[in-house]
């Protein structure tokens, strides 16, 4: 008998159908990956298996887990099963734990609500499980004292402390750095082997899927479009959607060659210090050095990448380049002029730089029309275009990013994530800056949309020499869209050089670790 058998699972919320005729089986000890883009129904399928569907969801079909049909099981029985028969790990480790309870208490709680045992024994077992998942800190610590990777270990410990038969992990490593991701995936693999449990992993990251799964299930708009063992599916994929997904995630862009040009942005030996909390009541405030002696140049029309893990100083560097904050040593100049003068960004320089941020959902004012949103940089100009000239500029910027001039009168909520990122790029382009900073600009996008945006960036480069600093934690993307790359660790640039050289022959140990940890799509040798 299989551990989990889903037959004809359909689901609607209100009148909106969410899932259609899902079929899926898995055995104990097997790792099955569900993949697909956002909104494909991956998470809803997982919640259905947990019996944790949102209010008003109407499921049909059956989900047989360990002999019991989840959809027919009463809520009290489901409570007895959750944590016991099936456990779940969620995407966001930063918010998945109760901030006011110790991690030991939270793991022990899983034991205490399911088994009649003493508190002392439950805490002992919780501590043992925390150690098993590789956590080296005391169970008496609170979640806020732990890093994202450590918190994810706590969440995993909580889900598996009673050795459930099925563990569901919904994007368990998406919010983590690559090196942490590699360690968490190793841990999950080991646990599956040790406990002989089934692992249903949900992820949009095809490289992770190819790396860890025994079986792959591809979902699109609430349907399973293709499923099979990993080896078979990777070499014999049939469905066009599966093919397009894999094609998009390995999508190569064709950048024009760089031209020999003069240096434009010059970052010279900069340091950035932040005051941190006093150690004694009236003592001096100690400083934290976020950037150590950073130096680099970006030439006109040059495409430079910046990679590094969270907290390494990427965002601090962005703010310093944009002249939003002063630096405590060294100088940043653009075309010879300092970016920061006294208390303010130097406006003469600022109009030569624009930035595109990560989150296309929160980086726009929802009450303004697109027209007003993308003309925001005009305030940097001494004589912004007015009347017809302004309308023409708006229309041109929208057309340049593949949108229609009519979109100027719409509000931002009328656009999809990918379209919003196009609007963000239009906003950056409208004053024809010399340098654009892409700060994780494609990280929140689905692979197919990401491929389109990367194509758009390449197309813009072909139109006119565009210099950019492309900041990302995703090494594979940086490799595809940059000429030169810098690797940053703990506030220092540890390696920089030609992108291909750095990636194929990394010199610094940290670069080597990063590249080794990044999951890669296997070379499939198939016609896609």
């Amino acid at each position, binding site marked *: 008998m299989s551990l989990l058998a889903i037959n004809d699972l359909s689901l609607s919320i209100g009148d909106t159908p969410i899932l259609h005729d899902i079929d899926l089986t898995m055995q104990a000890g097997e790792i099955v990956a569900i993949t697909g883009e956002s909104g494909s129904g991956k998470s809803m399928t997982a919640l259905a298996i947990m019996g944790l569907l949102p209010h008003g969801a109407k499921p049909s079909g059956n989900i047989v887990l360990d002999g019991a049909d989840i959809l027919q099981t009463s809520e*009290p029985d489901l409570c007895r099963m*959750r944590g016991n028969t099936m456990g779940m790990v969620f995407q966001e480790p930063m918010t*998945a734990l109760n901030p006011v309870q110790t991690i030991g208490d939270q793991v022990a709680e899983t034991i205490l*609500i399911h088994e009649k045992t003493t508190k002392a024994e439950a805490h002992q077992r919780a501590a043992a499980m925390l150690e098993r998942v590789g956590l080296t800190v005391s169970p008496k610590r609170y979640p*806020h004292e732990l890093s994202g990777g450590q918190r994810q270990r706590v969440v995993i410990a*909580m*889900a598996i402390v009673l050795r459930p038969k099925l563990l569901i992990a919904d994007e368990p490593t998406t919010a983590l750095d690559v090196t942490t991701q590699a360690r968490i995936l190793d841990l999950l693999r080991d646990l599956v082997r040790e406990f002989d449990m089934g692992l249903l992993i949900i992820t949009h990251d095809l490289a992770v899927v190819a790396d860890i799964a025994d079986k792959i299930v591809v979902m699109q708009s609430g349907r399973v479009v293709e499923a099979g063992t990993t080896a078979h599916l990777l070499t014999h994929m049939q469905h066009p959607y599966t093919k397009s997904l894999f094609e998009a995630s390995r999508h190569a862009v064709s950048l024009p060659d760089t031209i020999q040009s003069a240096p434009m942005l010059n970052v010279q030996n900069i340091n950035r210090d932040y005051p941190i909390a*006093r150690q004694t009541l009236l003592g001096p405030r100690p400083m934290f050095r976020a950037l150590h002696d950073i130096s680099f140049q970006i030439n006109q029309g040059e495409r430079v990448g910046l990679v590094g893990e969270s907290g390494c100083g990427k965002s601090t560097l962005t703010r310093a380049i944009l002249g939003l904050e002063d630096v405590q040593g060294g100088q940043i100049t653009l075309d010879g002029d300092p970016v920061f003068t006294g208390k303010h960004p130097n406006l003469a320089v600022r109009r030569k730089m624009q930035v595109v941020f990560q989150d296309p959902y929160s980086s726009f004012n929802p009450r303004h029309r697109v027209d007003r949103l993308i003309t925001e940089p005009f305030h940097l100009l001494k004589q912004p275009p007015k009347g017809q000239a302004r309308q023409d500029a708006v229309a041109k910027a929208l057309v340049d990013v593949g949108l229609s001039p009519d979109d100027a009168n719409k509000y931002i909520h009328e656009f999809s994530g990918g379209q919003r990122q196009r609007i963000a790029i239009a906003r950056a382009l409208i004053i024809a800056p010399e340098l654009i900073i892409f700060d994780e600009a494609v990280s929140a996008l689905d692979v197919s949309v990401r491929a389109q945006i990367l194509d758009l960036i390449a197309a813009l480069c072909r139109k006119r020499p565009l210099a950019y600093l492309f900041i990302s934690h995703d090494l594979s993307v940086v490799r595809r869209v940059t000429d030169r790359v810098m690797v940053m660790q703990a506030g220092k640039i540890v390696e920089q050089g030609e992108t291909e050289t750095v990636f194929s022959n990394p010199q610094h140990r940290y670069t080597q670790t990063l590249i080794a940890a990044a999951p890669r799509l296997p070379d499939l040798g198939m016609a896609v």
Partner: protein
Amino acid sequence: MIRYVLGRLTSLIVSLIVASIVIFAVIEVIPGDPAAFMLGVNARPDTIAALRAEMGLDQPLITRYLAWVTGLLQGDFGQSWTYKTPVADLINDRIWVSLPLAVYALILSTLIAFPAGIYAASRRGDAGDVTIMGATQLGVAIPNFWFAMILVLIFAINLRWFSAGGFPGWGDPLQAIKALTLPAIALALPQAAILARVMRSSLLDMLGEDFIRTARAKGLSRRQALWRHAVRNALIPVLTIIGLQFSFLLAGGIIIEQVFFLPGLGRLIFQSISARDLIVVESVVMLLVFTVIVVNFLVDLAYAAVDPRLRTKA
């Protein structure tokens, strides 16, 4: 944790110093001559001069401020101009009405609001939730003195369970509490309505958090997840409101004190203002400010007890 408490304590002391300067400035410096103000427009110049000497107004500002503050620290609040008794005695008589009344009302309001807010949040959208929210809407809208009169009408005049007003003193604690019951209820109901709404919305926010979903995935029922994980997290905004309400209850009970003929601080300050007795006004206002600041300090400590993140930050 020690650093957090020391930090809050420093802020408490600084707030008190700033508050004392502001009160001193507003009452003694800004309106011109306090003695002339207290005696009114028809006073003879020599009477004013006499009062000025009596109040020490011929001294320099700094000396007067320091004398006032050192007096306060030693429990010497000065001599009331109208009552001709030490202000300390006036306050001492009344604080034992106002303070217990405020605490009593606060306890009642919390006892009503917590269960009501938690119940409403746990049954969001159900009849119970709608009923409670409707009731709190009324509670917020209806003024407390009207409540007070209705309470007197029902429980004092018709049922004769309580007296309609007055305060017998703490000689018989049971009688004293009985006398404070109707005023406390009248004060508590509108506060409870506000608090219940805050509790409900704060809980609903928490119930949408990821860690509630994690708790449910562990096998906790909806109710268990609410009690074990949501309630404590929801307390922070509730504590803020409780702190603000206590300040209001202490000084803002003036109308209720009037309705129930209670000799409280509210009435004292009202009478002192009417009689232009600035010495009393100054000291009572300082006392109220002191209480408010201390209550806020306690609320800060309560935050730290609830939320471990505050203990380490400082």
